[in-house]
Structure formats: C-alpha cells, structure tokens
C-alpha cells in the first residue's frame, strides 16, 4: 500500500513537472531541433540576451504585471473590507457573486467586451489611439481584482471581530486600527492575492490581445505571433529563467514564513504596548489633576 501511494505521488509529480523539465533540457540544446537533443550548449541563452525584441516584451510584461497587481491589491483589499462591514446579507451576497463573474467569464468575452468599451469611450473622447498601455492596465486590474478579493475576504472572516473594536477602545483612530491591527491580520491573504494577481497578469494572453494597442506588446502576444513560423529555443531559455526566478521567490517566502514570529505574538505585543502607553497617559493625567488640587 505504501509503495502504491508513493508511486501515485510520483506519477502526479511527473505529470506536473516532466513537461517543464523537458523544456529546460531543450533550452540547452545546441540546435533548434525539438525532437532530438544534439548536444549541450548555452547558445540560446546568449541568443536570448541579444534579442532586444524579447527583452522589450519581457520588460513590458513585468511593468504591467507589477503595476496592475499592486493597484488591484489595493482596490481588492478595500473592496473586501467594505464587503466585510456590509450589514445587509442580501447585498453582500449579490456583490460577492457579481465580483466573481469576471473570474468565471471566458477570457475572450471579457477581452472583447472591454475592447468594445474602450473603443466606444475613445470614440466619444475623440482620441486617435483608443487602445494603449492605460487601457491594457485597466483591463488587467479589472480581471485581477476578483482574485485579490477571493484571497482577502476569508481572512476578514477569520479575523477576531473584537480585535479592531479593542483597538478603537484603546484609543486608536479607525485608520490606525486598520493599519496596525487589521492589516497585519489579513496580510497573508493580501500577499497571496498580490502574487495571484501578478501571475494572472503575467500569463494573460487573450484579454491582453484584445486590449493592447500598437505601443505596448507583452511577452505572451510576442510568443503567439512567433507561431507563424516557429518558436525558437531562446523562448525556452527565457521560460527556464522565469521558472527559476519564481521557484526562488516561492522558496524564499516559504522559508521566511517559518522563521518569522507568529502573528498572534506580534499582536499581543502591540496590544500590551498600547495598554502600557494608555496607562502611563492616564497616570500622567491623574498626577496632573493631583497637582491642581494640591
């Protein structure tokens, strides 16, 4: 039985990772033959670093992914906060499902409808370049928000409802209570939301395809256009580098997660610090009064 379960895991891992390993292997091929491994070389990596077009596209993709993920993380977190505070169950449920629609929608529907909207608004405003970097950014933020909300909302639900109240009680302003108490509580959700938004934006093709103008070409669009002839192994090299970068990032986050002090400790720390501060303040006030009366 043990062998069976182990081989099952091995099978699943193989299905997941063998294609990636093959890609990595062939990025080191000495010719651009994908059928046969003809010899080890770093030729395609050198080629990759010489290709200005690919790098421009990579730069565009990263700019877009980071900025859209950041903005959608802010908007999505605020939206989740608002939803959490909402009293009407019906309204809450409705808004929750409405925000999920872009996630369920086929990309092509989202892409085309956004393009139509942008063209329509652009025509109203009389602009010549109706699709550009900004429309692409708006489109990416739009489809990223649900992913952020999906990750942040449960954290609000898990959070102890009395924590922010206690913070307010102890003299925090609402803003302080949000940044000092609630945000640390929901931080893991915010970070996962950000990472998900980043990856979604990084590998989106369909929506980008419809919403991008002539000034901004992302990596997926560039790779797609290469299929007219053939995709060269320098793209394999690029993919390999990206996979390694993502793996390192993942390993780093996981390692740091183990070492860091737990959230509860931090919270009780800051709570006790706040309590102390209040006490000293109260004591000071009391002594002042004493002084007056004397």
């Amino acid at each position, binding site marked *: 039985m043990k062998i069976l379960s182990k081989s099952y895991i091995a099978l699943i891992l193989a299905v997941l990772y063998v294609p990636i390993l093959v890609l990595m292997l062939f990025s080191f091929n000495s010719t651009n033959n994908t059928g046969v491994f003809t010899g080890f070389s770093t030729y395609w990596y050198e080629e990759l670093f010489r290709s200005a077009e690919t790098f421009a596209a990579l730069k565009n993709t990263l700019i877009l992914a980071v*900025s859209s993920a950041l903005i959608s993380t802010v908007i999505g977190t605020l939206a989740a906060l608002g939803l959490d505070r909402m009293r009407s169950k019906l309204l809450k449920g409705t808004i929750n499902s409405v925000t999920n629609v872009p996630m369920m929608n086929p990309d092509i529907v989202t892409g085309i409808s956004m393009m139509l909207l942008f063209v329509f608004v652009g025509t109203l405003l009389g602009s010549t370049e109706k699709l550009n970097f900004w429309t692409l950014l708006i489109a990416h933020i739009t489809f990223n928000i649900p992913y952020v909300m999906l990750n942040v909302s449960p954290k609000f639900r898990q959070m102890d409802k009395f924590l922010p109240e206690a913070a307010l009680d102890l003299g925090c302003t609402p803003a302080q209570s949000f940044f000092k108490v609630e945000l640390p509580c929901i931080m893991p959700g915010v970070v996962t939301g950000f990472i998900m938004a980043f990856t979604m934006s990084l590998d989106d093709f369909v929506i980008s395809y419809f919403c991008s103008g002539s000034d901004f070409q992302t990596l997926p*669009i560039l790779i797609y*256009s290469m299929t*007219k002839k053939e995709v060269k192994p320098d793209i394999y090299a690029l993919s390999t580098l990206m996979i390694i970068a993502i793996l390192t990032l993942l390993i780093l986050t996981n390692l*740091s997660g183990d070492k860091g002090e737990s959230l509860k400790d931090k919270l009780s720390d800051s709570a006790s610090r706040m309590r102390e501060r209040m006490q000293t303040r109260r004591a000071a006030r009391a002594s002042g009064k004493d002084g007056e009366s004397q």
Partner: protein
Amino acid sequence: MIKRILALLMLALVALGTVSLIGCGDDDAITLNVYNWGEYISDGSEGTLDVNAAFEDYYYETYGVRVEVNYTTYASNEDMYAKLKSGATSYDIVIPSEYMIQRMIDEDMLEELDLANIPNFAYIAEEFQYPEYDPDNRYSVPYTYGMVGVIYNTKMVDEADTGSWSLMWNDKYSGKILQFNNARDAFGTAMYYQKIDVNTKDRTEWETALAYLKAQKPIVQGYVMDEVFNKMKGESAAIAPYYAGDYLTMYDSNDALAFYYPEEGTNVFVDAMCVPRGARNKEIAEAYINFMLSEEIAVANAEYIGYASPNTLVRENEDYIAYMVDWHEDAMNILYPDLSTYTTSYYHALDAETQEMANGLWEQLKIESSVGSSIHTLALIIVIVVAALLLWRFILKKYRSAQY
C-alpha cells in the same frame, strides 16, 4: 519578511518605471508603428542586421529627424485585420498577404502610396508590379513571396510517388501525412489536386474538394500549422504541404527532407507592405518601405526569413546567392522557380457568402472525427458513474436518517 518582500517588489516597480521612462526619454522622436508577422524581419538575433535600428539611424542621418520604430507582431492576416478593423489603433505600416490586401482595398482600409517617395520600387521584379490583387499598384509594395509545395522525407517516401498532389492521398503513407489546419489552404490542396479553380464560388466544386479531404482524413496524422516544423524535423511525419521558405528552415536541421512543387499547380502568395488608413506618419512610412527595398536591407531580410524576395537586387546579389546555396545547394531553384513553367494562382478575397460556405464545410470536416464516437461513449460513462454515485449517496443519507 512579507513586508520586506512587498517593499522589494515596490522598489522593483519604481526601478522599472524609471528604466521605462529613460527608455522613451527622447520625446521629440516620432514613433513609427510597424505591424508585421512574427519573426518576419532581420532583427539582430544570431548576428544578423537589426533592420529597425538601421532605419532609425538612416532616417536621422538623411532627414535629421529622430524616428523610433515601434515594432509589433501578429500571427495571421485575420488577427491583423481584426485589430485594424476595430479602429482602436493606428499603425503606419502593415504587411498583409495578397487576398487580405484585396479585401482591405475593397473596404477602403488602405492609403494610396506615393510611388515618387519609393524610388526603389523600380527594383521589384516585373511579375510583381501591378499584380492582380492591386492592379494599379496604388496600395502595396511586395515584401516576400513564396509558393506552397510538398515536403517529404526521403528516408520514408519512395521517390517514384512524388511529383503530384496525389502523394498526399497515397494510403501507403497512412498516418504519416500532415494537412494544413486552415480552411483555405487545406481546401486549396484538394482543389489543385482536382484542378478546380481555388477561387470558385460554386458550391458543388467546394463539396467535391470536401469529399477529397474527407477521403484523406483517415490517413492524415493531423491538421497542423507551425507544429509542422517539429513533426517534419523530428521525422514523426513524412509528408506535409508547406511553404518553400519554411522547407529550407526544416532542411537546416534535417537534410533527409526534400521538396517539390506539384505538377497540377499550386498557390503563390505575396506579402506586401501597405500603409493603413489613419496612419499618422505616411511619409516616414514610405521612407521605411523604400528603405526595406534597398539592397543591403532587403538581402538581410531575405537571408533571415528564408522566403523568396520579389526584389531583383536580392536575386542578383552574389553574397545572397552564395549564402542560399550554402544553405541548400538547390535553394535558388526552390525559392525562385520559373513561374511560367508552373501553374500557379493567387487566393482571392472570397465574398462573405462563399467564405461562410467554406467555413461551414471546413467545420464539417473537422467535427466528423474518427475518435468522436469513443469520446462520446467515454463522456456518457463518466456522466452515468457520477450520477450513480450521487444517487447512492442520496439513498445512503435517506437510509441513515430513517434509522434514527
């Protein structure tokens, strides 16, 4: 730590932002938007000439104006058409194929070119001046051309069977044959084989072609486009119709591959440079077109792409000929066959009705799959199993609640 990671990412964003700002720092440069096929220009990779950078330098030296070429790419004529038709973007140069040019001329989507600004047009070979898709040569300047032929593997295919389209219907090579995965080219192979006019509007003729494609289906390994490169190079298929220039690319990695133009006739395509309506820098675009026709640049492009060039300067360039012969000893004959000895024809833009009919027939071919019935059975079995499981759970629940 999480905060630190976020801070790092923020930093990266700021850094990228500054880099991009520096990148487009010279605001006075005019942007020339070029929209071309993917990997269809000599771009500086593998030690080639970077044509776009060369144009920027050339333009600055000649006219004293800074131009920045913003080069983006597409994968098919239809993609490019959809993008232009949406009216959302403005490009200064596009490079569609002949049937798409015809359609865009009909729909008034192209600017008339001022040939006085393109003196190098004189180097275009005679047979590509005033072509049938642009009879007055007002809208387009040819960039590359090529013909469809049959690629086969000499290790697997008997030389005696070659020479005609019939090779693609030869059941001796069952499971080793590839077919185009787009309606026009796939029907084209059957139509040329049966000597039907590929631009026919007659439904019965299209249906004859469909009958041939259906007959071919059992022996076809797959309907492919760019996968053809790997399949032919890796020898998992033996026969495929494709373009002469691409054959040379495949030959580069597998010299067992050979190529011929079928005797019944074949398709010839031309990709030509055009200026779409609404282009903001028409004169610079014309300078760009002219630049693309100059000897050094045209040779660099022809060597990079591997397709035939309609530019006589290229065909007569000794370095180019030496380069191509070094690539494949018969390359010049393969790329530049004497067009008068072959029956060739262009695809014309089909009218909407014929287009729809062709698409319908194509769907018919693709849907009727041999694995269809087995997939349906499999899906049915899965549905039944899931339903049975659900029913079983429901009954079990009822049974348990009845016990309490």
